[in-house]
């Protein structure tokens, strides 16, 4: 007998689930956190968007890009450049996303000629070029960057109070996540996984490997741009550090930390990493040391990320014997009876 809600499209269920979970989390967080902590939670959400995008390349597609900060920074600087105009925050985020998307297409076409390690380094080099260009440009504020960036007003309320801004970011996260989830579950997601698992075979099967790669790259860049736009509004400025290769490395590590082969893994990774970094910066003299050790431990012991923990727990606790007759062995595979 099938459950009554199994008739509802799976997609709709996921939308409701996602919004529901984020609503609950949002309520809990806003009611229990100080403004400082809320700031960190907002950063978690922003990095979650960034990481979800980066994971399109890394987890879904199997190629590590060490230049995602280029698109994050593009989003941030786009918003910062528009700071003297009154633009609705949603439109600002959209503009940042589109700008980042454009840069991603350009860089993608150039970098996707290479694969694997060379691709990784090429993305790093491309991002560094952008970083240097921006760092040296006086029009873009050189080392200090551009400021102040105001958060604006959305749906009639000002986004300057951290609480309001947090809900705005959460809404954008929900939107981005659901769009990506849809794509993840589509044939595009399956095709990317095929390329990841065996590119030669995928090509032999007729999958347009280069085109898929470019689409994935663009998607990742767009998400990064959205995140960067939000980050500029959060910080109130755009600076070259948002284009640095350390940020590119960090976001990929967030995906690894959370679990790159799970859809929501990057969100978990971004949250854990951001909070760990915050707590370590406040309480330890050398935060990089502990962060590095944490990440090293994950790489060596739990390369599938923190989502692995759920499976480890399930393995020990939730194991029930299968119902009788559920797994029927086909006639041909049953061991032959022994006749003495």
């Amino acid at each position, binding site marked *: 007998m099938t459950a009554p809600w199994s008739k509802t499209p799976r997609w709709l269920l996921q939308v409701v689930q996602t919004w529901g979970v984020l609503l609950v989390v949002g309520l809990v967080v806003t009611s229990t956190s100080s403004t400082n902590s809320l700031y960190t939670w907002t950063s978690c959400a922003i990095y979650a968007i960034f990481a979800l995008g980066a994971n399109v390349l890394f987890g879904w597609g199997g190629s590590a890009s060490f230049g995602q900060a280029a698109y994050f920074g593009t989003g941030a600087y786009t918003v910062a450049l528009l700071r003297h105009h009154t633009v609705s925050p949603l439109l600002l985020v959209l503009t940042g996303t589109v700008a980042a998307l454009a840069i991603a297409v350009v860089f993608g076409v150039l970098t996707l000629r*290479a*694969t694997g390690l060379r691709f*990784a380094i090429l993305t790093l080099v491309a991002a560094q070029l952008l970083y240097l260009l921006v760092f040296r440009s006086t029009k873009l504020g050189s080392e200090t960057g551009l400021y102040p960036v105001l958060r604006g007003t959305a749906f009639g309320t000002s986004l300057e109070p951290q609480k309001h801004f947090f809900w705005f970011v959460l809404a954008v996260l929900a939107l981005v996540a659901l769009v990506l989830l849809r794509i993840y579950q589509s044939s595009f997601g399956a095709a990317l996984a095929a390329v990841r698992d065996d590119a030669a075979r995928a090509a032999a099967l007729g999958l347009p*490997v280069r085109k898929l790669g470019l689409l994935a790259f663009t998607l990742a860049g767009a998400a990064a741009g959205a995140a960067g736009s939000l980050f500029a509004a959060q910080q109130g400025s755009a600076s070259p550090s948002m284009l640095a290769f350390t940020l590119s490395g960090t976001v990929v590590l967030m995906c690894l930390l959370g679990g790159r082969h799970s859809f929501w893994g990057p969100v978990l990774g971004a949250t854990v990493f951001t909070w760990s970094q915050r707590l370590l910066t406040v309480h330890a*003299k*050398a935060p990089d*040391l502990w962060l*590095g050790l944490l*990440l090293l431990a994950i790489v060596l012991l739990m*390369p599938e990320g923190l989502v692995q923990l759920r499976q480890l727990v399930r393995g020990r606790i939730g194991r029930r014997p299968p119902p009788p007759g559920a797994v029927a062995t086909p006639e041909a595979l049953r061991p032959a009876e022994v006749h003495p």
Partner: protein
Amino acid sequence: MDRVLEALVSGLAQAAPLFLGASGLTLIFGVMRTFDFAYGALFMFGAYGLATILSGDAVSLPTFVLAVLATGVAVSLLAGAAEVTVYRRLLRHDHIITLLGSYALLLVFTGSATLIWGPEAKSQSQTKDLAGAVSVFGARVASYDLGLIGLGLVVGLGLWLVIRKTRLGLEMRAVAHDRTTAVALGVRAGRVTPMVFVLGGLLAGIAGAVSAPLYAINIDLAGSFILQGFIVVIIGGLGSVQGALVASLLLGVVNGALVVYAPSVSSFSLYLVTAAVLVLRPQGLFGAPEKSIA
């Protein structure tokens, strides 16, 4: 004419530590088959190490040389220890994971440096005997630059001897070329790999130590060095020491010239050249071509 000579000498002097570092990186690539971000930290430790041994003082040349060697050995031991404890386990996973693991290790190393030496930059004075400048064919060149060029030649020769004339070198080349066959032929890959790391560590440590008098010593050295190292190795060809030599000479001289004649373009040039090489000739100058699928 003088300016050309000055640019040339300063370029060659820049190329020397770069060549040392890049050689180590490319040798490590040979056995790891992926990049090692943490290698940049070994360079950083070399610089910190020398500054610690000499307490930043200006000393005579023999003392300086001894200190550089001591630092190099210390860093090489660290590299060897890292291989046995961390890299050996990292290398069991696929290349991307290893790459990320090396980045995490870089964080561990830079974090340790902050813990040991604090966040402020350190400095190391120039050695007394090479602090000035001399006149070469009418151009003024820093004596230390000449020292660096000399070092590059000596180390280059030493590396060549080790790689081409010793058994270790033969085994290193074999493992880099085809690990499986090498092991099948009896090469103890488990012995060769740590030795490669020790050698790489020695090179990075010496490169860092001799660079100590030239820069402010802080953790940023790790990042900037590894980026330069990647560029040289990519342009020269992954796994090739001759490639590292040619590429570092090329980059050193080009950068030296640009610094004199077109300073605003200088840091771009490195990245633009790398991007061009990666796009047009991905295997670099001396590397093996990569098979393409799509």
